[in-house]
């Protein structure tokens, strides 16, 4: 652990953090543009050319608005709630491999903040903590709609975590590792996991929609039933934190989906054109971000296309369809992996 290594890590942390925030900021702009495109409108076009400064204007508006803390609320928890939501959203970017390692003067600089050997479990732990911010915020508001929204959010997130975990178990069975950098490395060329685990990918992406509280699973903040859901009582930047965390979660989920199932920073046939490993690493980052942008678009596309589920339908989908399907996926994966042993047992 030399000093230069430490400085490199600190720079990497700051860069990842800044990029996460900027991407999330421009996702809000992209969301409005995509919505406008899908509804045959123009969308924001006043602030700057093509409305490119709109996120900045929104941010300034959020900061300048009056801050209201309800008199009957639990003040400390009311403030801790949105802070926790944003904190857990920012914590997940740590284990994602953004590119293959850079080699400068014989020193290897991995483009990943930390390669813990239980990366998937870390990711899962942080996701499971994300629900606390919403629950605390919803309860501390001392409002029936907020509480109902918080309870909906937590039960939905817990239910879909089960199916998500089971779909990842099938992935771990084929990859044989819990480290995200090794999973990304294994998918070199055309060996993308989505070809091995198509069912697992579908379950994972549905659960990712539910975990980020995005439509068609945005029941915790369903306007027609719950006013604003868990953030009914929030105003100013505290509301902004809740809304912003959703976009950060969307970015991170897209990065995780790309890393788990779509090759991460790998792109087939690229070695034929570029040989230098450093250029490959930089191009890998570009490819990963292309995949991420595509998945963010899918998130928005689905939101502006599908209607919202009813709450009982949501629970039925989670417990009665996705969990049995993911269990089936595990059984099939195991059977295919042990096919030779099974054949020997049956026919010899």
């Amino acid at each position, binding site marked *: 652990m030399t000093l230069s290594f430490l400085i490199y890590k600190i720079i990497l942390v700051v860069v990842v953090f800044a990029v996460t925030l900027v991407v999330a900021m421009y996702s809000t702009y992209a969301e409005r543009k995509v919505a406008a495109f899908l509804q045959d409108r123009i969308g924001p076009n006043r602030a700057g050319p093509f409305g490119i400064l709109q996120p900045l204007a929104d941010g300034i508006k959020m900061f300048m608005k009056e801050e209201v803390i309800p008199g009957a609320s639990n003040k400390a928890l009311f403030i801790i709630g949105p802070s926790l939501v944003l904190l857990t959203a920012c914590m997940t970017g740590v284990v994602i491999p953004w590119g293959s390692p850079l080699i400068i003067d014989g020193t290897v600089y991995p483009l990943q903040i930390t390669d813990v*050997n239980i990366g998937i*479990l870390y990711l899962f732990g942080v996701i*499971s*903590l994300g629900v*606390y911010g919403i629950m605390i915020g919803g*309860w501390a508001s001392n409002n029936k709609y907020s*509480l109902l929204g918080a309870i909906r959010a937590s*039960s939905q997130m817990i239910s879909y975590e089960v199916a998500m975990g089971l779909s990842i178990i099938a992935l771990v069975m084929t990859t044989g590792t819990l480290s995200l950098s090794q999973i990304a490395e294994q998918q070199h060329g055309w060996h993308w996991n989505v070809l091995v685990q198509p069912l697992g990918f579908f379950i994972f992406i549905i659960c990712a929609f539910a975990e980020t509280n995005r439509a068609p699973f945005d029941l915790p903040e369903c306007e027609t039933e719950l006013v604003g859901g868990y953030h009914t009582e929030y105003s100013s930047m505290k509301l902004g934190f809740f809304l912003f965390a959703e976009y950060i979660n969307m970015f991170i989920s897209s990065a995780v989906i790309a890393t788990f199932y779509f090759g991460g920073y790998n792109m087939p046939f690229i070695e034929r054109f570029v040989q230098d490993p450093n250029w490959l690493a930089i191009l890998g980052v570009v490819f990963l971000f292309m995949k991420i942008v595509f998945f963010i678009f899918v998130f928005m596309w689905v939101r502006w296309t599908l209607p919202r589920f009813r709450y009982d339908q949501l629970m039925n989908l989670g417990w009665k369809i996705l969990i049995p399907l993911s269990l089936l996926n595990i059984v099939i994966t195991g059977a295919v992996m042990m096919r030779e042993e099974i054949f020997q047992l049956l026919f010899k």
Partner: protein
Amino acid sequence: MITTYLFYFLSFLAIMFALMVVFSKNPVHSVLYLVLTFFTIAGHYVLLNAQFLAAVHIIVYAGAIMVLFLFVIMLLNLNKETEPHKSVWLKASAAVASGLLLVVLVGSLKSAETIVATNAFDPNIGLIENLGKVLFSEFLLPFEVSSVLLLVAMVGAVMLGKRSIK
């Protein structure tokens, strides 16, 4: 050296948060302090190089079980008015009983022999590969039996949750 300091720091936090669980008036605060206590215990696991155990501890206890606790307590909306009033006699007897329990615990700890580890400590035992190998070879039967135990508990909960049994 730094692990020793970390150990004392985490232990101090763990004990402090555990006391806050008992002493805080608001049940929601108690649950949140309990979550923090679990975090410090997970930190102890990391110090022992048992990363898998630490991660699973966070996922299962902090991420699932405590969320359900919080869920129930928020729905019940416990506060001062709904708290049952206990008589002085009940409080006194509780103090005496728990004091006796403390005496028993201290006495048994005092007469206990120091345990000597028979196997040499392997710092890699907590890593997920080694843990998996041990669980699925040496401790296969207890591992599988505990899964049956969880299944029984789940079936029992479903049975109790049903309104009428046909």
